């Protein structure tokens, strides 16, 4: 077993400051009631919040080099942002636009990257939510005259995007193309997780600009980055569930005592604490590997994704259960986290898919091999 590098898993001062800033903004402009309203079709919270994050804080440019108009930060800072967005179940397209679409465009020329970094435009990649870095990808056909047609269902980030990235079939293989969202037929999907609502997208002879010949590696790299950083969102979500539940059980009385004093619940929360701490270590390691462009990145991502996906779901399920009936109600925010966690679990590759990939990487072949 070759040994991976020892990465710095502790936050820098810059990262700690960033965390405080983002949390402050989310506390002020992303309360649970506004997020819940999204489920009933009131998306008023989305655009102002996204504009604050991008135009005020410049977060869309974290992964973009300074000479391309970005902040020249790294995946570690993006991970901090995602942890906080997970904590708030925030309905903004940071992952789809500022991580995935942005990473796919890193090797392109033109202004789009800078416009994304500045928050002037928002993009998403036309793949189903569950597509992982190794999965088959939808490649759309052209008529040879720069017009692309085809459908992709269950895509995240479309409703918030003005720009769509598509893989376009060319003789030299799939190229990366850019299509204006207004040129697409977008049908919103009533989604289990409305904080990352899906949509079905159909292009019917839409005008496309090819921006990169080698489209497939760029898209896979983007999905790899997305998977590596999604773990931080999941870790942040899980930590909110733990902290909120602990806080509630410290004050909720039953049988003349606070519920948090009952040992069976204490032990479950201790186990959950163990999981949440572990998830955050795994997530920060994946982000650090991505930031360092380390060869261990794929292993680190498979580990973080398969672990954090299940921890987030478990934490949200425990939050619902341990809040008792109140956790089952629409008014209490626990359900926002349950839905987000369950959707995140299948996003960018299921835990099982990540383990299957891991098996190849670390030489633990299956039964038939």
């Amino acid at each position, binding site marked *: 077993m070759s040994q991976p590098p020892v990465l710095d898993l502790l936050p820098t001062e810059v990262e700690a400051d960033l965390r405080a800033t983002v949390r402050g903004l989310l506390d002020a402009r992303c309360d649970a009631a506004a997020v819940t309203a999204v489920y009933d079709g009131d998306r008023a919270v989305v655009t102002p919040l996204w504009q604050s994050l991008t135009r005020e804080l410049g977060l869309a440019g974290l992964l973009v080099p300074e000479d391309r108009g970005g902040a020249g930060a790294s995946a570690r800072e993006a991970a901090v942002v995602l942890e906080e967005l997970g904590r708030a179940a925030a309905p903004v397209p940071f992952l789809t636009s500022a991580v995935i679409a942005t990473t796919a465009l890193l090797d392109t020329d033109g202004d789009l990257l800078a416009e994304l970094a500045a928050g002037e435009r928002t993009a998403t990649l036309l793949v189903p939510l569950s597509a992982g870095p190794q999965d088959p990808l939808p490649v759309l056909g052209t008529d040879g005259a720069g017009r692309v047609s085809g459908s992709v269902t269950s895509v995240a980030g479309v409703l918030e995007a003005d720009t769509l990235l598509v893989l376009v079939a060319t003789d030299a293989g799939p190229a990366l193309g850019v299509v204006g969202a207004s040129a697409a037929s977008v049908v919103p999907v009533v989604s289990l997780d409305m904080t990352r609502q899906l949509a079905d997208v159909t292009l019917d002879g839409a005008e496309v600009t090819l921006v990169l010949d080698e489209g497939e590696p760029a898209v896979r790299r983007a999905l790899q980055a997305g998977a590596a950083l999604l773990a931080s969102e999941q870790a942040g979500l899980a930590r909110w569930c733990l902290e909120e539940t602990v806080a509630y059980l410290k004050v909720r009385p039953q049988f003349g005592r606070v519920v948090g004093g009952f040992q069976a619940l204490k032990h479950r929360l201790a186990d959950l604490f163990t999981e949440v701490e572990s998830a955050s270590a795994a997530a920060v390691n994946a982000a650090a590997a991505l930031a360092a462009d380390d060869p261990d990145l794929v292993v680190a991502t498979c580990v973080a994704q398969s672990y954090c996906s299940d921890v987030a779901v478990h934490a949200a399920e425990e939050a619902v*259960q341990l809040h008792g*009936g109140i956790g089952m109600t629409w008014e209490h925010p626990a359900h926002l986290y349950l*839905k987000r966690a369950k959707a995140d679990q299948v996003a960018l590759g299921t835990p099982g898919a990540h383990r299957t990939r891991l098996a190849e990487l670390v030489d633990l072949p299956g039964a038939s091999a």
Partner: protein
Amino acid sequence: MSAVVADLEKRVDALLAEHDPAATERLEFLRARFDAGLAWVWYPEGLGGLGLPQEHQAVVDSLLAKAGAPGNHPEKNGIGLGMAAPTILRFGTDEQRRRYLRPLWTGEEVWCQLFSEPGAGSDLANVATRAVRDGDTWVVNGQKVWTSGAQNARLAILVARTDPDLPKHAGLTYFLCDMTDPGVEIRPLRQITGEAEFNEVFLTDVRVPDSQRLGAEGEGWRVANATLNNERVSIGRASERESGMIGVVSRTWRERPDRRTPDLHDRLLRLWVDSEVFRLTGQRLRQKLAQGQPGPEGAAMKLTFARIAQQASGLEVELLREDALRYESDQGWTQVRPDRVDFTGRDAGYRYLRAKGNSIEGGTSEILRNIVAERVLGLPGEHRVDKDRPWKETAR
């Protein structure tokens, strides 16, 4: 054929002869059936029954069904039939039994349950709703929650605090409450599925005649426990292989070969085994009950039921991936008030969310584990600071 069955057949024939189902108004037939003792044969004569063992009911039901007789739609009055009726039978006065059981059984009067409160969930004895005596009536004030079917109910079983100076279990009294009283306000309680299966019920100066008290003053805890035991026994019946959530998920598995993976396969098989063992455990429990040996597995079975429903529905989402994230069937997230609870219906996302309630409603899994540990295994109870002190000093 036993003499009992022969006699039952004769009675059914007589009922049908006097009330041809094809020519008789539905309610009239149901009332006649009740009066003939064929409603629930294990109830006493005069109260819809004949004092026979419960298993004979199946004979009557099947004969009447064959004859095209109308049914009493038990699914519309689950609380009434499953909880109110046995409690009224056991604790009611003769007058109460005669007044309530017949329209309950025929479905003319639907019942709901006013037990839980925001501060009295698992700790049900902590009920804070007050009932104060005013001559021959009680004046009730408080807030109840988790009341299913309140909007359709004519009557409610109600637990209220009549003496806050007594320790909490001792100061409760059980009432039958008229839901049409102007002091009763019903608000739908929306849950994580988007639906409002349940309600909050606000009671403001609701007047309940003392004749609608069930059991003695201060005896409410004992009466309520009898009601709840009926609830727990009625949950978790799975007599067919692949019934319930495992059946749904197994069908999904068969329909979607493209989505199968080895890890999900083994998890599915484990759940299939668990479900089958759950079915067998239930079968044995029913055999014991039929022999008059109540088994201790009731609370344990509800635990298993909830676990399987949650794990299987969670697995289905992983299997279907983004297809399970389309929450599109029926009304999506629009708040509706469903006619009846459906654990396994709609789509995978709904099932996943709804199953979360299975370990909360009707006794949380945590409370059920306490019950198994203490009542079945005989382990010591929790330290109870509030047990012997006046309720008003402990209540929070």
